[in-house]
């Protein structure tokens, strides 16, 4: 239909390929995309056992570059002098790359074009002998990179005080990888199996963890630790999202040179039918919860919308069964339905959390305003007024992340004024003293409290704040906040 083509060309400004057959254009696009993600009909071979020295690798999963870098850090460097990488087909290998003083290496690779490239990693010992590293292999796919898809919702880590540390914000181009350092809130001993510190990964636009959806958890199992981990230990958390929505989270404990991993499916990106089935089950459970909440709220329009969504999920389950019988189109239809229902549910969850977020913002703003009125100077009052006005704008615009940032500014200004009142300083110190038995190191906590009291008596504000911060680091988080923060074990 030439007329239709002309109209599309006039409305869609980007250049078009007019020579493509409209009947096969979608199939060609799908084939190109399948090539970029290395889609294979056969199953993955079983991974070989990993027993060698461990290495922390960084490399692109898919790249259009034929010579990308692989960068890594050897976590067990004893007796090793270098690393060598060999392509699986043995037609290409690097020389021995010496480890630098930080036990890291960076090597350019050579990819075969338009295919999946598997590489083997070897550690070179001082004797010249080679041993496989752990992991022993990695894969990089050379292919087209189709425009980076944006992330639909913010992903972050819930902290023990029920706040969220955003790692990857909504709208950033995928793939994306971010690393931040958090600290443990409780000691963990390998002699206490069964106990675990949790690092909850949440998705949502709120900075209050209980308003966000839990999408995965890294569990720092006590029994798996190589040694005792005191409270306050640093944990480097890396969250990686590939362009399909597959989330990989890794926690590195530098003190023990130990890593813990977790993989989750954020939406339904994987083409594997098993992954689709798992996502469908999770979505059904979320739908049931949402329906229950809508019934309790008496939200009639939401009940109707969720009922329709439930029917579509039931249809998707049928399509999935058909797909298991070999109909790939049915699998695609099921996948599309799940993506749409996931988006509808996210909207419902955000709507439900919004009044709670606004309540919390109003509480914080009024608290800050009361102390600002008593102790704020002119510049602080101006800043607070600006922040307050912006917060009101974000409330009207229903922008939770921006609102939370503005509220945080007001909270800091209010806190500064709050601590100008010596009674408040004394009260904070005595509250900390009342919880001293809960401290991870009661002796150090008592010493810090004594130092704080002395500083307060001498009107030494900086000394007082240093002491108070020290005590707070030694105290565990509030139990209620921790429960709301998905039982997070980090801050």
């Amino acid at each position, binding site marked *: 239909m030439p007329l239709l083509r002309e109209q599309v060309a006039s409305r869609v400004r980007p250049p078009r390929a007019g020579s493509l057959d409209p009947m096969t254009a979608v199939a060609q696009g799908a084939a190109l995309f399948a090539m970029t993600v290395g889609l294979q009909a056969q199953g993955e071979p079983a991974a070989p056992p990993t027993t060698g020295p461990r290495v922390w690798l960084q490399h692109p999963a898919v790249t259009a570059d034929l010579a990308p870098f692989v960068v890594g850090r050897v976590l067990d460097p004893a007796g090793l002098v270098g690393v060598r990488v060999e392509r699986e087909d043995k037609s290409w290998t690097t020389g021995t790359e010496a480890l630098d003083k930080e036990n890291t290496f*960076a090597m350019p690779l050579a990819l075969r074009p338009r295919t999946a490239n598997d590489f083997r990693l070897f550690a070179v010992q001082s004797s010249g002998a080679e041993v496989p590293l752990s992991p022993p292999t990695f894969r990089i796919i050379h292919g087209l990179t189709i425009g980076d898809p944006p992330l639909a919702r913010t992903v972050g880590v819930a902290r023990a005080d029920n706040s969220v540390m955003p790692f990857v914000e909504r709208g950033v181009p995928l793939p994306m990888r971010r690393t931040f350092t958090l600290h443990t809130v409780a000691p963990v001993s390998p002699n206490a199996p069964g106990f675990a510190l949790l690092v909850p990964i949440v998705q949502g636009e709120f900075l209050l963890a209980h308003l966000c959806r839990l999408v995965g958890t890294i569990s720092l199992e006590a029994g798996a630790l190589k040694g005792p981990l005191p409270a306050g230990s640093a944990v480097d958390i890396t969250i990686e999202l590939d362009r399909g929505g597959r989330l990989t989270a890794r926690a590195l404990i530098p003190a023990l040179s130990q890593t813990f991993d977790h993989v989750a499916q954020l939406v339904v990106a994987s083409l594997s039918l098993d992954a689709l089935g798992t996502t469908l089950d999770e979505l059904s459970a979320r739908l049931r919860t949402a329906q229950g909440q809508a019934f309790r709220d008496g939200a009639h329009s939401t009940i109707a919308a969720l009922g329709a969504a439930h029917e579509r999920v039931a249809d998707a389950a049928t399509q999935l069964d058909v797909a298991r019988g070999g109909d790939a189109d049915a699998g695609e239809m099921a996948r599309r339905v799940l993506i749409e229902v996931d988006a509808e549910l996210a909207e419902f969850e955000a709507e439900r959390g919004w009044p709670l977020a606004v309540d919390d913002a109003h509480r914080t703003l009024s608290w800050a305003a009361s102390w600002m009125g008593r102790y704020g100077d002119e510049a602080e009052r101006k800043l607070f007024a600006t922040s307050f006005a912006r917060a009101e704008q974000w409330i009207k615009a229903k922008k939770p992340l921006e609102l939370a940032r503005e509220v945080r500014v007001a909270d800091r200004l209010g806190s500064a004024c709050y601590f100008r009142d010596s009674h408040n300083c004394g009260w904070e110190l005595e509250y900390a003293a009342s919880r001293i038995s809960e401290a991870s190191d009661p002796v150090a906590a008592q010493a810090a409290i004594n130092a704080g009291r002395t500083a307060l008596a001498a009107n030494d504000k900086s000394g007082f704040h240093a002491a108070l911060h020290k005590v707070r680091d030694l105290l565990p988080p509030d139990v209620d906040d921790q429960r709301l923060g998905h039982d997070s074990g980090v801050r």
Partner: protein
Amino acid sequence: MNAPRLTKNPFHVLGVPPSVDRMEAERAGQKLLALIDLGHASTAEHASPIGPRPLSGDDVRLALSALRDPTTRVMAEAAYLPPAPAPKAEPPIEWAAIAARLSRRRPFFP
């Protein structure tokens, strides 16, 4: 020209000259991101016309994003100034030799 544009020029952030092609810039950026994720000490700072500046993963991603867009790349090329040469390490003061020459006692500080 404001200070961030001067110091956070994408070419300075990535440590590459304006003559690099897109693929070389991507490669340099991806390598930097990987090293930053590993916490490598060499990636703590980048060179700039007014001396070393702190470097973060976000800086690298923004630099890569700027160089992917032909318009912002031209602006970055136009705004490029060569980075300041690394400061030369001052030779250590030979206090012992000075003290011996002046026939005084050895100072407490090294």
